């Protein structure tokens, strides 16, 4: 009888082990980056705007329409790759895109946008990376969908691909 009882902890141990293993496979995707800002208000920030004489004040800009926020830099190769889709959001879909220029050289940015086209309605400058930290950014490019109530509804880490372009468009359509 006692020998049979000794099996219980063993079974208990195995069941916990299988549960943890199952959770590891099913629930946790190591490549998925957790985001704490989803369904929260956009961070408040004020900074210089690239082509404008006045400062970009976030509280004045968000809250009227759906805005795509794209963190980019000229030194970032994937940013160049996704630029074609950022332009399509603005030119074909008429979505307002704010491009936060991350730790970049102003002259390089002006030249870069002259060559590739400027899809951004505003370009707040994040000289030291503090705005990116406020948005919980890991590394650029990153793109956020902010709804008309200034709430961050979606975050994409990495460059926008053809599939992502379609996905973001359908998300925005569903929000409208």
């Amino acid at each position, binding site marked *: 009888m006692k020998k049979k009882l000794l099996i219980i*902890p063993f079974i*208990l*141990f195995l069941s916990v082990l299988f549960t943890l293993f199952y959770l590891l496979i099913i629930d946790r995707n190591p490549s998925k*980056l957790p985001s704490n800002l989803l369904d929260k208000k956009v961070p408040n920030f004020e900074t210089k705007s690239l082509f404008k004489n006045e400062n970009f004040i976030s509280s004045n800009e968000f809250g009227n329409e759906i805005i795509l926020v794209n963190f980019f830099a000229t030194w970032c190769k994937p940013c160049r790759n996704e630029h074609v889709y950022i332009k399509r959001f603005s030119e074909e879909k008429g979505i307002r895109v704010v491009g936060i220029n991350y730790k970049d050289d102003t002259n390089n940015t002006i030249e870069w946008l002259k060559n590739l086209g400027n899809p951004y309605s505003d370009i707040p400058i994040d000289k*030291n990376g503090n705005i990116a*930290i406020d948005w919980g950014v*890991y590394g650029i490019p990153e793109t956020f969908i902010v709804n008309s109530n200034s709430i961050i509804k979606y975050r994409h880490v990495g460059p926008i691909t053809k599939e992502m372009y379609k996905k973001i468009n359908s998300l925005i359509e569903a929000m409208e």
Partner: protein
Amino acid sequence: MKKRIFIIIISVCLVLFSLNFSYAVEPEEVLENQKQETRARNISKNIRCMVCQNQSIDESNSPLAKDLRILIRSKIKEGDKDFEIYKFLTDRYGDFILLKPPLKSSTLALWFLPFVFFIIGILIVYSHNRKSKKN
């Protein structure tokens, strides 16, 4: 003789592993106030580098880790308390940024299952010993 050499190698390795040589803090980041710098180092050791993920920002050379180290130091200089700095970071990056998961209802199993297994182990050893003594 061989045993002695083996013990020496193992001891040297243990000493080397126990010393924390690697840290990425650059000289210009270091605060003049030693107390504040120690606080910054202690916080940095508990903050995960979100780019490398298995290193703390104290050890990581990634640009984001550097930015976070500078930010922590500027917040300390501004007079923020440690818990305020942790809150600032977890508000933006979630609990994932902490290298030690906090004690919450969702992490209870993580914190207490090892103790449960330890107690089960002791009970098994105890019952086994009693049985062998009887025999």
